[in-house]
């Protein structure tokens, strides 16, 4: 069982800090999050036999917080989609309390949704990515999957914070995380009409029912419009593939990773090694990126313009509402079974807006409403509104459990 869930289990966990906020809790990471000496292959032959030489900042912080890092779960190649990913399974089966998941399109939320768990994507730039081997730098962050918003909160508190070693972190003061607010009023919640239109009738019905429950529990529902919502997916594909193509340039088979046999010269060594290093899905994505990079750079720039516009439009929505609510997903059966780029984007097209805009988002388990066709509920807040989201989620969980 363990081997099906874990790609690596730490046989002698290092000394843990018994006074830390997470003492007694266990966590799983993924094999693209560096722990010195651990196999760190990121699910790809491009990192074949790679063992990290240093700890990621997040790993250092987790150790300080006293959590036991149990091991690495299986992951998709370089974290692109969820094929073979077992992070949510590790939490669902009780192997660990919390799982960290590389989130570049909504992986934590979608994985959580498949196992009735909470899945959280924090604001961009509040957790150091030093030591995280990524694919799409401007979209990705550590996502957190857990049974409760409280657990997510204390993990977030432990790992968030500035880090000089991560040059991509904005120069800003990161607010204090860790204390859930006592929610007095759920405030106003915006529903993006264009998202609801994307749902099947049965899903749409379930989503409406969920909205009614929220309404009953004191949340004001307001319909809002984001005409360009369909562009999130398109722009993510263009920008994401270009960044992937660029960041995969480092896999040259010289310093680490897989080296093909019998190359006649350097170019052949690169071409053959890289032919064998990437799986078809990632490779296809890299070719898409190479196309924009080398043949049509203007489109990449225009996609970045569209991204700026979408960020601006999303922020404008929060002038009249407190949080946004979206369905989490449209597809149930293909989450772990994506074979083309289109398949992948079909799974994540409702979660990737948060990755595009850098805003926090949380998936609240569908079982909350007890419906199988339930598309799940996803809340989004303005950037750095992480605690507001987690508090809302905590409040709603208490409502479900009858505590409130």
């Amino acid at each position, binding site marked *: 069982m363990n081997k099906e869930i874990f790609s690596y289990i730490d046989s002698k966990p290092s000394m843990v800090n018994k006074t830390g906020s997470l003492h007694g809790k266990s966590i799983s990471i993924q094999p693209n999050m560096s722990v010195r000496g651990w196999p760190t292959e990121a699910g790809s032959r491009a990192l074949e036999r790679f063992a990290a030489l240093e700890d990621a900042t997040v790993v250092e912080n987790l150790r300080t917080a006293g959590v036991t890092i149990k091991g690495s779960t299986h992951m998709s190649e370089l974290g692109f989609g969820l094929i073979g990913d077992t992070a949510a399974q590790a939490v669902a089966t009780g192997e660990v309390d919390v799982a960290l998941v590389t989130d570049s399109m909504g992986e934590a939320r979608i994985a959580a949704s498949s196992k009735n768990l909470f899945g959280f994507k924090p604001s961009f730039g509040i957790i150091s990515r030093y030591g995280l081997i990524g694919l799409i730098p401007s979209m990705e962050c550590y996502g957190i999957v857990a049974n409760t918003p409280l657990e997510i909160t204390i993990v977030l508190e432990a790992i968030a914070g500035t880090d000089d070693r991560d040059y991509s972190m904005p120069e800003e003061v990161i607010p204090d995380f860790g204390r859930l607010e006592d929610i007095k009023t759920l405030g106003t919640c915006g529903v993006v009409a264009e998202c609801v239109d994307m749902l099947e009738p049965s899903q749409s019905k379930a989503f409406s029912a969920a909205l009614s429950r929220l309404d009953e529990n004191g949340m004001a529902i307001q319909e809002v419009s984001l005409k360009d919502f369909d562009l999130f997916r398109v722009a993510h594909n263009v920008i994401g593939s270009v960044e992937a193509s660029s960041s995969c340039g480092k896999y040259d088979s010289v310093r680490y990773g897989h080296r093909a046999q019998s190359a006649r010269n350097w170019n052949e060594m690169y071409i*053959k090694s890289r032919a064998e290093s990437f799986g078809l899905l990632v490779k296809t994505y890299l070719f898409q990126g190479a*196309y924009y990079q080398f043949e049509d750079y203007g489109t990449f720039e*225009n996609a970045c313009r*569209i991204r700026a516009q979408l960020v601006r439009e999303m922020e404008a929505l929060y002038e009249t509402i407190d949080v946004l609510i979206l369905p989490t997903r449209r597809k149930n059966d293909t989450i772990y079974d994506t074979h083309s780029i289109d398949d992948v984007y079909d799974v994540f097209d409702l979660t990737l807006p948060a990755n595009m805009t850098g805003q926090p988002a949380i998936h609240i388990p569908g079982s909350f409403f007890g419906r199988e066709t339930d598309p799940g509920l996803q809340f989004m807040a303005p950037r750095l509104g992480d605690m507001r989201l987690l508090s809302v989620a905590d409040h709603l969980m208490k409502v479900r459990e009858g505590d409130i």
Partner: protein
Amino acid sequence: MINGERSNCGQLNLYDVGRDVTVKGWVDALRDHGEVLFIHLRDRSGIIQVVFSPEFSPAKICERATLLRNEFCITVTGRVAKRSEGTENPHIETGQIEIMVTDLLILSRSETLPFPISEKAMVVGASVGSVESVNEDLRLQYRYLDLRRPSMQENFIKRHRIIKSIRDYLDEQGFIEAETPILTKSTPEGARDYLVPSRVYPQHFYALPQSPQLFKQLLMVSGFERYYQLARCFRDEDLRPNRQPEFTQLDIEASFIDEEYIYELVEELTVRMFKIGNIMLSRPFPRMTYWEAINSTGSDRPDLRFGLRFVEATDLFKNTTYGIFKQILYRGGCIKGINIKGQSDKLSKNVLQNEYAKQIVPGFGAKGMTWMRVIDDELESNIVQFFSEDEQKGIVKRFEAEHGDVIIMIADPSHEVVTTVLGLLRLHIAERLGLIPGDTYCPVWITDFPLFEATEEGIISNHHPFTAPDRTDFDPGDNENLLTLLSRSYDLVINGEELGGGSIRINNKDLQRRIFQALGLSDSEVEEKFGFFINAFNYGVPPHGGLALGMDRVIAMILGTSSIREVITFPKNRSAHCPLTQAPSPVSREQLMELGLLDLAGETVIPGGEKERDMVDHLSWVSRIGINEGERQHIVDAMKETARLANIINERVRDEEPIFSVTTVTNRVRKEPQAVRNPLAEKGEIFRNAPAVKGEFFKVASILE
């Protein structure tokens, strides 16, 4: 009046004095002394002075003679006379005699000349116009006039003699001269082909031969045993000053022979050819292996007319504290030098440091040059203080240095850089100091070339794929090992110029197949390119080998001309253009139509699939990601998607939006004030994940380019 008897101008002499003769030729020069007119009359054999004077020429003839101008073609009759004392002309063979003209016939007139043709002064000490200053294209445009010049005619007469000596000698040795096709099949090996379109098979092409290589080997299969040909060869190569798109090659091939036979045959042939230019070569020619040549002169076509041989010095510095050498040796480099004997007067500190070390050597591609002047028993240099006493003594001993010598050394991590740069320096210094003796000819055979050469595209044949290797126990998949194979080939080099080369060929089908494998050619590629040739290997191939000499070069060297164009009747200029015929030239639409070449550049590309395949191949190359079997269709499909996404993006973008970026510009800048060496690199830990390591370096494919 004029009978059929014709004398040759250059062959008349004092014995002919008093005879009546008729000569025919061209007016080389005129000298008008009022009533008396002197003319140099020139034919192929030489020049004779003819004199028109009222004393012995009829008035009508004198009058006609006033019409004469340079290069008129005329017939003259008269009596041979000894010139009067003091009027002899030492510039011409017939300077002691002249012809007193009694009759003149103008056969053909000439326009004013574009440049002077006459090369012989009519009086002692007078100068003649030199053709050196004439634009070469003008000479080539009027090549028929240029070739009238006696010196040019001399070149071609000698060329004829040399060619004839080849035919005579090879005939003596039992060789058969045979011709091979000019219209042949394009082979993708070697240089670019000149193509000739076929009318009968539209859009199919013949190629002009780059050499008769395959045919001459087939003639060996045919049992000709000894064959030669003065073959015209064609290569569409990049232009170089001393290169012609077509050239003549003496092509020799023989069966049941070995290298020694070739050396014997070609040395004797070379001696005979050079003798025609009054150059005596002594036999046997010395031999050097490729690596000997490289390690002692830095060139595989060494100029052995002077010394300045390399001295190996790497081991002298194995414990050195001199930082630059230490670094280079640590990186596996080498150090070689030259002792320039007794030249310290001419090579001052200033010349060595400011000219050579700072300008010339970096221009040759090395980082720097170490120099030392030997003054008494001491080394003098800008860096000599960095060398220990032992090292200094070692240098003096190894280089056999004496007072007045100058030692130069090149050190570099790359052996190739050291030998190449030192080789160029060797030539530069020899030239500068006048160390190259004139009229000296130093032939040498260069042997044992590496069979293969490493390039960016992979392993290629150094010579051609039919060259026999020195051993047959190699693994065609093991590149490192393949690069250690030597070939049974040989080059004939004289005075730093490669005049020709050849090899013993493979006559075993299995061996040939493994060579093709080593070159990365699949069976189907081999079949397509060389199928007809390989087939012949099924029918009893004799052991054979041969050689080809570049005749234009050989003749230019024997005659000492400034370029090979001086020994080619109608050469192309340096731009591969013929100023005389204006070839190459456009052709008529009708000709193109007939050949089916009109729509070649048109929109005949099949729309859709093919173009996208090309795009995928291009992206595969620029992003250095190979495509495995079965993957291509997915990627082609994804390419269609990229175009669709691009359309959506570009239709809906608003130009006024800024380009989004997650970080501010300042954040992309490293915060440390200066670069810091990563401790993981310092401890060598970065090698722990490397697929291949050699010492303290990442190991990679052996060939960069």
